[in-house]
């Protein structure tokens, strides 16, 4: 059920992000969701794309350090408190959220978020039981 995310390691200096976005652009791959986290020394770029395998290979071809990580995609209602309900459910189950970011495309009534936790399937099960719609890779191409 989980969706596959590209995790890309870059050094924290000018030009490293551009190397990544150039590779994705040249391959005509569409970015659906993206986040960047940085420390003083390095950055981690995480993205959900419409063709994860091709994107990974294109990045490797450019000598970029990339790995595929599974994350949870969930639809939350696009109104105040929509995200809060999903996060509360996870928190009350004692599951730690490592990171979370939103999709770039949104539908009329839902916003989509990516959540990374230690135990993806437990989080998915909880969210589904509580009436949330999980996002699949198939959904991503139709977004």
């Amino acid at each position, binding site marked *: 059920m989980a969706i596959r995310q590209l995790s890309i*390691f870059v050094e924290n200096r000018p030009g490293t992000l551009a190397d990544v976005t150039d590779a994705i652009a040249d391959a005509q791959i569409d970015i659906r969701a993206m986040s960047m986290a940085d420390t003083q020394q*390095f950055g*981690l770029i995480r993205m959900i794309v419409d063709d994860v395998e091709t994107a990974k290979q294109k990045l490797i071809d450019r*000598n970029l350090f990339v790995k595929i990580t599974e994350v949870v995609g969930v639809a939350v209602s696009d109104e105040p408190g929509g995200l809060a309900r999903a996060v509360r459910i996870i928190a009350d189950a004692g599951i730690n959220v490592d990171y979370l970011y939103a999709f770039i495309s949104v539908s009329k009534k839902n916003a989509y978020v990516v959540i*990374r936790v230690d135990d993806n399937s437990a989080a998915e099960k909880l969210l589904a039981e509580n009436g949330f719609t999980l996002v699949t890779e198939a959904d991503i191409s139709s977004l």
Partner: protein
Amino acid sequence: MGQYFQKEFETMPVEQIRELQSEKLVKQVKHVYDNVKYYRDLMDEKGVKPEDIKGIDDLHKLPFISKEDLRKSYPYGMLATDLKNCVRIHSTSGTTGKRVIAYYTQKDVDMWDECCARALTAAGAGDEDIVQVAYGFGLFTGGAGLNGGSHKLGSLTLPMSSGNTDRQIQFMMDLKSTVICCTPSYAAYIGEVLAEKGYKPEDNHLKAGIFGAEAWTEEMRRDIENKLGIKAYDIYGLTEISGPGVAFECESQTGMHINEDHFVAEIINPETGEVLPEGEKGELVFTALDKEAFPMLRYRTRDICVLTREKCSCGRTFIKMCKPMGRSDDMMIIKGVNVFPSQIEAVLLNEGYAPNYQIVVDRVNNSDTLDVYVEMKDSDFSDKIKDMTRKEKELSGAIKTMLGIKPIVHLVAPKSIARSEGKAVRVIDKRKRLGITI
């Protein structure tokens, strides 16, 4: 003419120094031959007997001792007396992670302390002075050496150790320290913090500082002198020979006088081992004439240096050595600590990393910095920041355990470290652009 701690020796006519050295050398070679199997084997291999050494002119016949020999003979192989006669050890980092341990009898400590007292006296210190020792205390010889020298001199000694700069400054101001001893980079740092706190150079009571254990330039000397309002003196030494005070600077600040009644210095061609005439540049070699517990004969320091014997305005007759101009091997001195790339490599392998790394040394705000770039393997990669920073911290901690100094570790992508002819460039010492020879 200056003040002397032991005038009789410090101003001894050169011919008498040579006679004294000859007499001591004959006894010392016998002592070592009789008590140190490792060196006896070296002599036997070279076909030299103690009776072949009749004086200082025969010194060149003896085999060298290298850092490698100390590593091989670790921990007791060079010990020349019963352990029960020893009162202390000091230690320095050595190649491939094995440390060099030097042993001292009480007589060895007394001799060393006297050498440091000579250095302090040459810097203008006496029994009315307040000497703040801000070198590290512990296995490192810096703190113990100057502390002992200050005691011998009868100065009031503040055994501060290094660090805790606010406390250093508080004691310096409240107790009116007149002499400070530490690494030059720490002296420059104290100067900066004093200025930040609003003190002018004339506000402190310091008149002199003795700075050693790391390379520093004349520019840095002027900088420290201006910031602290003092005269800054250089000091040289190494744990293998005793510690700081093997050589020290006098008021003329034109090189360091070697305590020749205790140590014989030679300059050799590092490739051939041939002894070079005075004034030529080569590797500095020391023979310790009075050491009982850990007596080095012809120990190769790997420091590249020049010796000159000229009449000095201070009245001392001891030969002078210049600041070391470089090293004959890959050892770096970072924050006063000897660092070999192989030590860092050993830690990386031990921690499960590939030996693809780059060491970058720099000096920022007069303090040495150490950055280690390490290539990750695929399995080291995590999409979680906390996992990656934890790995960096763990590696930094492991390197600190080995070296005693903490690097900033940067994990980098595989094959991202520049390679020349297929080999990664191991060390980039940016201090060289500052004119500092390490």
